[in-house]
């Protein structure tokens, strides 16, 4: 079986819907909800345990937030220093204003090597820019090497969680997928056996790989050191064995000093997988004669980050270290899963970051409303991002945009109609007539197609009663 026979694009290109719409579908999928509830419950317990044993956790959070704020406040200088350090260590730095530019750079580098396939270690940045589709379009086969990414790729789906992209699938579903797509009808649903199947499947790809693509968790400007945090060893394989390594990194991942890792390597593993330390952390600085790739390329990606930076209220979202703790505690995510968010960034952080990064139009525009503002995300965030406040801020921006849309215009008309008592009563009588085909059991059950329907479907609307209080009052027999 070859990867080229897969068609992940088919399942992915389903037309994106707004969050409320997509969530309705997700809520109906009981298996997905059960899988997610099970997984997030265990990870929350683990996280709480390893966080409680760190006596200076709050001081680390404050330091993590401060280092990120410091970086963002002088991001231009930090990026220039990072570039110089990497060049001095024998690496090459590329800059990409948007997804298209980044994809073009990566495709060009792979082509220059004459490689027909690349091994990839999980990277949200490359998910965000849809690099795999660009590679496939150029006849290059991307091989995802993270177990969860592999599962998602084999199933032709999209990731549903920052850290555990296949969180929506349970072991039986994964067994069935591997039986079919890896040609291993003998497999049981024992996770150890499933992991072993992935090991065998990918080993050959690692051994022959000439080009690898990774993301980055951190990049220290003073030394030019890139840091990738992982569990399985596929990250080590990708960053060590191939001849050429290409790393795609959002510009906000830079940190000023190597020393700052002393904070983030405490905050990140405990917040994300609930471990004292993740199994493997790779740190490399340019290229090293006799050890690892002989060429290293860093692609620095803007793709909306400077737009986030320009909004002081939304800016703290760029502190995010993608630990996914906020996702695991989010009551909305736990009910809907990640696919309803329609972006690689799910959950609370996705709700504030995706509309800012991926633009305010289309499906992601509804994300800031996908929250009950309970604040659980803020409590666990290792870099103190006040997600609820940013959500409210983003809602404000979305509402301001809508004012000029159908809702805003309609409200203006209603405002005029309701200005006098006679106008108000006329409007009620008219409304009663108009709602007849739409109402059922006292609720508006059907919505007309078009923008009005889109507005209404996300709301529970009681129908106008047959008689209003005023009408009843007027028609009473008793004298007033």
């Amino acid at each position, binding site marked *: 079986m070859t990867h080229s026979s897969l068609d992940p694009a088919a399942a992915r290109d389903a037309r994106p819907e707004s969050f409320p719409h997509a969530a309705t579908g997700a809520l109906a999928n009981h298996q997905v909800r059960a899988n997610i509830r099970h997984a997030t419950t265990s990870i929350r317990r683990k996280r709480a345990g390893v966080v409680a044993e760190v006596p200076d956790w709050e001081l680390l959070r404050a330091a993590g937030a401060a280092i990120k704020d410091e970086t963002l406040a002088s991001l231009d200088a930090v990026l220039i220093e990072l570039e110089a350090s990497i060049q001095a260590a024998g690496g090459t730095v590329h800059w990409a204003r948007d997804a298209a530019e980044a994809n073009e750079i990566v495709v060009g580098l792979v082509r220059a090597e004459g490689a027909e396939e690349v091994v990839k270690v999980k990277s949200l940045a490359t998910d965000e820019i849809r690099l795999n589709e660009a590679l496939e379009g150029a006849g290059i086969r991307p091989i995802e090497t993270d177990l969860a990414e592999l599962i998602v790729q084999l199933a032709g789906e999209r990731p549903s969680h920052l850290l555990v992209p296949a969180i929506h699938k349970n072991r039986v579903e994964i067994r069935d997928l591997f039986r079919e797509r890896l040609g291993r009808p003998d497999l049981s649903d024992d996770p150890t056996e499933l992991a072993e199947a992935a090991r065998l499947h990918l080993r050959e790809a690692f051994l022959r790989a000439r080009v690898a693509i990774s993301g980055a968790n951190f990049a220290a400007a003073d030394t030019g050191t890139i840091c990738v945090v992982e569990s399985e060893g596929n990250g080590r394989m990708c960053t060590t064995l191939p001849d050429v390594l290409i790393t795609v990194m959002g510009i906000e991942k830079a940190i000023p000093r190597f020393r700052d890792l002393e904070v983030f390597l405490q905050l990140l593993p405990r917040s994300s997988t609930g471990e004292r330390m993740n199994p*493997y952390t790779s*740190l490399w600085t340019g290229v090293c004669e006799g050890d690892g790739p002989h060429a290293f390329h860093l692609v620095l990606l803007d793709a909306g980050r400077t737009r986030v930076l320009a909004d002081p209220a939304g800016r703290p979202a760029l502190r995010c270290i993608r630990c996914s703790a906020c996702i695991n505690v989010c009551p909305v995510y736990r009910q809907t899963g990640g696919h309803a968010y329609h972006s690689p960034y799910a959950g609370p952080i996705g709700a504030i970051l995706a509309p800012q990064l991926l633009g305010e139009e289309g499906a992601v525009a509804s994300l800031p409303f996908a929250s009950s503002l309970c604040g659980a995300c803020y409590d666990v965030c290792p870099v103190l991002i006040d997600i609820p406040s940013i959500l409210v801020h983003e809602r404000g921006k979305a509402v301001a945009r809508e004012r000029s849309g159908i809702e805003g215009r309609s409200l203006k008309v209603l405002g005029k109609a309701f200005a006098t008592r006679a106008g108000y009563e006329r409007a009620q009588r008219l409304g009663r007539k108009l709602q007849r085909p739409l109402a059922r059991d006292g609720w508006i059950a059907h919505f007309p197609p078009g923008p009005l329907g889109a507005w209404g479907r996300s709301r529970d609307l009681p129908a106008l009663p047959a008689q209003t209080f005023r009408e009843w009052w007027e028609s009473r027999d008793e004298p007033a």
Partner: protein
Amino acid sequence: MTSPREAILARVRASLADTPSAVAVSRTYRLRGERDRAGVIELFVERVRAYEATVVVADDPGAAVASALEAAGARRVGIAPDLDRRLRPPGVELIEDQGLDSRDLDGLDGAVTTCASACAETGTIAIDGGPGQGRRALSLVPDLHVCVVRAEAIVETVPELIAALEPSAREGRPIVLVSGPSATSDIELTRVEGVHGPRRLVVIVAT
């Protein structure tokens, strides 16, 4: 036409135009631990064990390496050319890595290396390509990794570990932090030992 680099830097500067100068970072968190040597070693052993790695405290690390390899049934074992003679057990076929290719490494039963430093609180060993450690692929591709840690190289906290590694980073040497054997939590968030990295990790603390 402006280059993407100039365009991005210009956007960054424009975005920050109204921002007050950078906040200072206060490092009020613990910069070092408080345990004595014995306490640090004890904590390290406990924390590495928690990852399902095998941990041995030995005053004769050479003998401990020999028995670890024997217990694992490893016969052909990779080492760095500069590995200390005393850590090379007799009766095992030792293959010096003078640029073995990936497939050769894949054919080995295991690798024996030393490490640069280690962190007790997180049960982490750090490899930076120094004496006895070899290049990164050596301790990655074979399925068994036996790592000898000098007791005095163990620090208590993460800040102490990072401080110990900073000179290597400045020299441009690649570093790997290893905390237990390869694992994944990708199936139902249950940690399972062993995907692509060595599935068995033996840590020998040389006292």
